[in-house]
């Protein structure tokens, strides 16, 4: 799941300026994150209209990152889209760019910030699980990812800042290396941690690959 957070309304208004505007939501991740589902889009429509910004229409794409499906769905909104040069998108950065691909002549405004790949732990509670590094090393660490969860992405952790299972960066963060250690200990596999992990091959990350 791609975890997003809605920008605060003042920020959105500042970027948006004046209306009219067409709103786009997404049926998948942004719906589950409560940042761009139907409920949030209708709430945003109301907020904008209360501030005298006309909303020419809205759509919840299914999902926003599906280019061909977006084109099909948007065909039904020609009239609403013709009334505006601005599209305010509440999806992840991926969905917003798919929409931008379709409307090269319109201004695309992103209403969400895209944070990470994460799990829904409880309603409205999300935990970072992956940063798309292109080479999964989970098997080395008992199913926990230090690349995305350790702020230093250490492969030979923990660092000296780990204390009582907390990270030096902030006591609200668990030290993932403490969890890795405890987990492997439980599995009787602490030997796995004695291996010096070599520098990671970052060329496998998405940076050099635009298309697969």
């Amino acid at each position: 799941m791609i975890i997003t957070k809605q920008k605060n309304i003042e920020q959105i208004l500042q970027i948006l300026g004046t209306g009219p505007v067409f709103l786009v939501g997404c049926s998948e991740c942004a719906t589950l994150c409560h940042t761009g589902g139907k409920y949030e889009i209708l709430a945003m429509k109301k907020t904008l209209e209360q501030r005298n910004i006309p909303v020419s229409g809205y759509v919840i794409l299914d999902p926003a990152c599906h280019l061909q499906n977006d084109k099909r769905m948007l065909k039904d909104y020609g009239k609403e889209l013709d009334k505006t040069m601005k599209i305010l998108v509440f999806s992840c950065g991926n969905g917003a760019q798919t929409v931008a691909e379709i409307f090269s002549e319109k201004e695309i405004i992103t209403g969400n910030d895209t944070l990470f790949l994460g799990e829904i732990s409880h309603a409205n509670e999300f935990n970072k699980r992956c940063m798309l590094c292109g080479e999964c090393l989970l098997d080395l660490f008992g199913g926990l990812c230090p690349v995305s969860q350790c702020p230093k992405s250490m492969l030979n952790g923990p660092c000296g800042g780990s204390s009582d299972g907390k990270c030096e960066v902030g006591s609200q963060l668990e030290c993932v290396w403490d969890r890795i250690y405890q987990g492997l200990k439980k599995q009787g596999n602490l030997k796995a941690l004695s291996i010096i992990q070599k520098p990671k091959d970052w060329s496998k990350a998405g940076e050099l690959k635009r298309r697969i």
Partner: protein
Amino acid sequence: MNYRSNLEKRLSEGQFVITTEIGPPKGSDASKIRDKAMMVKGCADAFNITDNQTAVVRMSSLAGSLILLQMDMEPIMQMTCRDRNRIGLQSDVLGAAALGVRNILCLTGDHQSFGNHPTAKGVFDIDSVQLLQIIKNMRDAGVFQSGDPLLAQRPCVFLGAAANPYSGSFESQMNHLRKKIDAGAEFIQTQSVYNVEKFSRWMDEVRSQGLDKRVHLLAGVTPLKSVKMAERMKFHVPGTDVPDAVYQRMENASDPAKEGYAIALELIRELKSIAGVHGIHITALFWEEIIPALVKDAGFNARIC
């Protein structure tokens, strides 16, 4: 007027300057860089020390610059944003200034995939425009990027940047150049010129926008040593423009090195006559030994440093 460096002084006085480039060695032997430096001493006003050029690990540009200073030669320390974040870069600016470095060339840097550690993670925390602005603010406003004030001395450096007249559209390149000047670039070294006609048109645009009045522009010259090198420059090095005529001259020459030298001499003479060009930046890749003759044959007197 207090000039920060000899390079700034010469440019400000309206002298036509020569800069050249010295690549540090792939090892810790200081004599390697000293030997190269000795070869070109007196031939240029200042000497670029490259920063892990093409992402190949070499002795640091800061160490190379210090070795030059010890030889009474003026370095232009190159800094790329590939290997250090804003903390490391600002720290090295302070260190370099403390050791006597007075010219810094700010670059974004070649991507690590081109070098000898293609699996490395590129830093690219900031880009060249941001680096220029950060160093300018450290120098002029006495603040770090975060706004935190510098407590001891401000780094007294003359700031440079690179420009490529051959990449992208004129419009976007010109916009990028203006941005670099706005950010703090006081001199510009360009990509190697082979296509003078196109360079000249680029300079027309530079002048029409008044940018030549705001920055000292040094045109790049890289002598072609062999047909193979001409081929590489023409077909494989991104952002270079070797016209067919130049390529054919190299191909047809009985002595390609001699022809490459002659072409470089002609280029220098032509570039010198273009309004707004304040100097030449000679990069003789694996051919540093010809620089003294080239500079002399081009009609430039020996330099003091």
